[in-house]
């Protein structure tokens, strides 16, 4: 657990707010006057998990830095739906980089701040970089690894919706096996994305032994906020990877976004943990263990697994991946290691 959950206050820390909690223990999102770093009027699809995840994360970072934050944003849905020139939804200094160089741009901003400090700047201004999974795990990966390796003072946030959503749902190296995308169609002997390819960037980030790496989902706000807050306590390179379901790309109803993210975590398909200097420090335990079908079935990108003859072998392979996560991270006992 990234934070001390409150028990027995009716909803404890499960809900966004809780009138029974003392004000200082309440979430950033529950505040009547919260930052709303990404404002209304953005053009994200109905129920977009990325828009939600970005507000959760950036608001928490704003809170942690007292609003002294600069943001670099890779190309992708998040940038396109928020900032069609000359309009923007962002309520903080925000720069749009290229698709692949956000980490490098953020490094530059951090370097500029360092110089300004040497010249007398007293305010403690921090830098956050953000992008989709395509911009992070594929094209931006070199810049990101460099930023990690140099331990630049940047928090990099990846919003993982498992594909290049903005350009029409193409496969990325974060697209899960068996998922249908425009470039991994549900045809042929092995429909959907192939098994055995792709990468899990949080693990690669940990291999850089940077101060802080964490995963989170939009289904667990308190955990997400705690991780952003914790990340801001470190100087140096930090990485948070947030699972953000995409109703359009995953083929889910717009009201299901949070439920799907929750199922990803509860089935073990997406491990939620945090690590410091390359070591896992805490794990969010599965609360009600469920088979992977519960997660797969509501998503049209897996519809080919549940046709007239269900693809039981493929489902079993996905279950094996979940089981591996559960074992590796100790997801059933909360990593009581």
């Amino acid at each position, binding site marked *: 657990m990234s934070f001390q959950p409150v028990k027995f206050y*009716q909803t404890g820390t499960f809900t966004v707010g809780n009138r029974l909690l003392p004000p200082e223990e309440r979430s950033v999102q529950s505040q009547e006057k919260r930052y709303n770093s990404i404002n209304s009027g953005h053009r994200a699809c109905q129920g977009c998990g990325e828009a939600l995840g970005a507000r959760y994360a950036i608001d928490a970072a704003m809170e942690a830095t007292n609003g002294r934050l600069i943001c670099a944003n890779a190309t992708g849905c998040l940038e396109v739906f928020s900032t069609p020139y000359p309009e923007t939804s962002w309520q903080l200094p925000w720069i749009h980089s290229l698709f692949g160089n956000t980490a490098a741009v953020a490094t530059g901003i951090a370097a500029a701040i360092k110089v300004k400090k040497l010249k007398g700047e007293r305010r403690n201004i921090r830098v956050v970089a953000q992008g989709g999974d395509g911009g992070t795990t594929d094209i931006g990966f070199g810049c990101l690894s460099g930023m990690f390796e140099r331990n630049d003072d940047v928090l990099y946030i990846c919003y993982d919706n498992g594909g290049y959503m903005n350009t029409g749902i193409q496969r990325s190296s974060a697209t899960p096996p068996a998922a249908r995308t425009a470039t991994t169609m549900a045809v042929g002997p092995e429909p959907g994305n192939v098994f055995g390819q792709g990468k899990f960037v949080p693990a690669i980030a940990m291999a850089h032994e940077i101060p802080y790496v964490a995963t989170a989902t939009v289904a667990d706000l308190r955990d997400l906020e705690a991780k952003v807050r914790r990340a801001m306590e470190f100087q140096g390179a930090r990485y948070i990877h947030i699972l953000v379901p995409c109703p359009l790309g995953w083929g889910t109803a717009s009201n299901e976004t949070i439920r799907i993210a929750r199922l990803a975590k509860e089935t073990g398909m997406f491990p939620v943990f945090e690590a410091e200097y390359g070591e896992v420090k805490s794990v969010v335990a599965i609360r009600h263990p469920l088979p992977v079908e519960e997660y797969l079935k509501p998503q049209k990108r897996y519809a080919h697994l549940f046709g007239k003859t269900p693809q039981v072998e493929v489902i079993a392979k996905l279950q094996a991946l979940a089981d591996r996560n559960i074992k590796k991270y100790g997801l059933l006992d909360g990593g009581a290691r």
Partner: protein
Amino acid sequence: MDKPFAITLDPGSSLANHTGSWRTFRPLYVDRLPPCNAACPAGENIQSWLYHAESGDYEKAWRALTENNPLPAIMGRVCYHPCEGACNRQHVDAAVGINAVERFLGDEAIRRGWRFESSAAATGKRVLVIGSGPAGLSAAYHLTRMGHQAVIHEAAPLAGGMMRYGIPKYRLPRDVLDAEIRRLVEFGVELRLQSKVMNVLAAMQEGFDAVFLGVGAHIAKRAYIPAGDASKIIDAISVLHDMEGAQGDELRPMLGRRVVVYGGGNTAIDVARTAKRLGAEEAVIVYRRTREKMPAHDFEVEEALQEGISIKWLSTIKEAGEDDIMVEKMALDASGFPQPTGEYERIPADSVVLALGQDADLGLLANVPGLATDKGLVQVDAGMMTGHPGVFAGGDMAGNERTVTVAVGHGKRAARAIDAWLKGETYVSPPKHELATFERMNPWYYSDAPKTVRPVLDIIRRQSTFEEVLGGLDEGNALFEARRCMSCGNCFECDNCYGVCPDNAVIKLGPGKRFLFNFDYCKGCGMCATECPCGAIKMVPEEN
């Protein structure tokens, strides 16, 4: 047009983009009827008083509770809590211990001396209330709250009806009963004891504008049992009645060492448990049907069995002799009715106590024009008014569902109707909300919290004394228990809708004021409705 180098346009905000135009469904905040409230015969707003208890404001909780029911300490002991049977939390782990929290609040109120308050101006109207059982007390309380003068006439030397002369002390200690009645008198209810009303219409002539009848049902039903002269056959109601005020052993009913109780209701159980406490070595209940068919509640049967009472199911008493009785075995026929088998058995018995139900004594109602009875019950309309204008009735005399809780509900309903009638109006109850069913909720959000177990008196003392069997909750676990409430169907300001909206289209109005949708930006994704824990948001199609 003084812009920095290379900037030609004003910074534009996305607020100009009203994404609300995308919407095909719109969210609506609704209030639904919690199943506990729907199931409460006294019409308590359980959820609302639990809400205050959750924050530790017990006085506010007690005040919310007593808006509907003036007897929480009593009710927290004797109510059969149909609310818990309906509670949605049973689908998560176990029902909320509503009854236990109610008792805690009732006891807390007695301990702290909380009193009733009313802001209603005196109307100058006087209402005669006949009987000080729960029906009469409740009617008198609600009439007083409305500004009328309620005058109770009670035949017995002490008030409370069956709560005093029926329900044994080990379930309802008399200091609790006395405290709640005393509070009603202090509130302004006039109580005249040992004042039996013989004729309603004559009594009404003494300056009353209306009358509420709550005389209960006190005449024990008999069964024909051939019996020898030396056999001892008595009825449960008089045994329990004699227990009241019986301080020394010599005043206690003499039942002997081996007591047989005939009947299968709660009264049978209570009298058998009483006999045990009075020193009977054997207390046997004889009942003609099966345990499943027994009208007594399962937990009471269980408690009786624990105390060493035995039960002979599927048996009837054929005859009673000096020191034994003859029992005939029964068998259920195809339609579930017990039929005699011709198989007999003798069991030793020093006395037979009949607990076969009660009838109402309606002697005082002779010659009331328009008033109708059916099978010994006074017929009333939805507002508890009899066929005679201005004469209302409730409790055991007016229905077959005979509990303290139903009686309290009748008293309240009648008081409202009397109030309207006195103004020349008819009371119309406000429309009820749709039921808050479990399927509409999102139980993920509730903390895992198993039900609190109440302490129970040890078995030795349960067999020999009249000390209260079931203990109460202390503050810590009452608070815990209250917080297990899921607030089914009504916003409890958890901020989920406010938090989960990807478009910041929910406006938080501040503590106690709930939320508003900003339809300029709400795209109608429905996330708020799906993630609302208690099902207080519904999605409806847009008009066009």
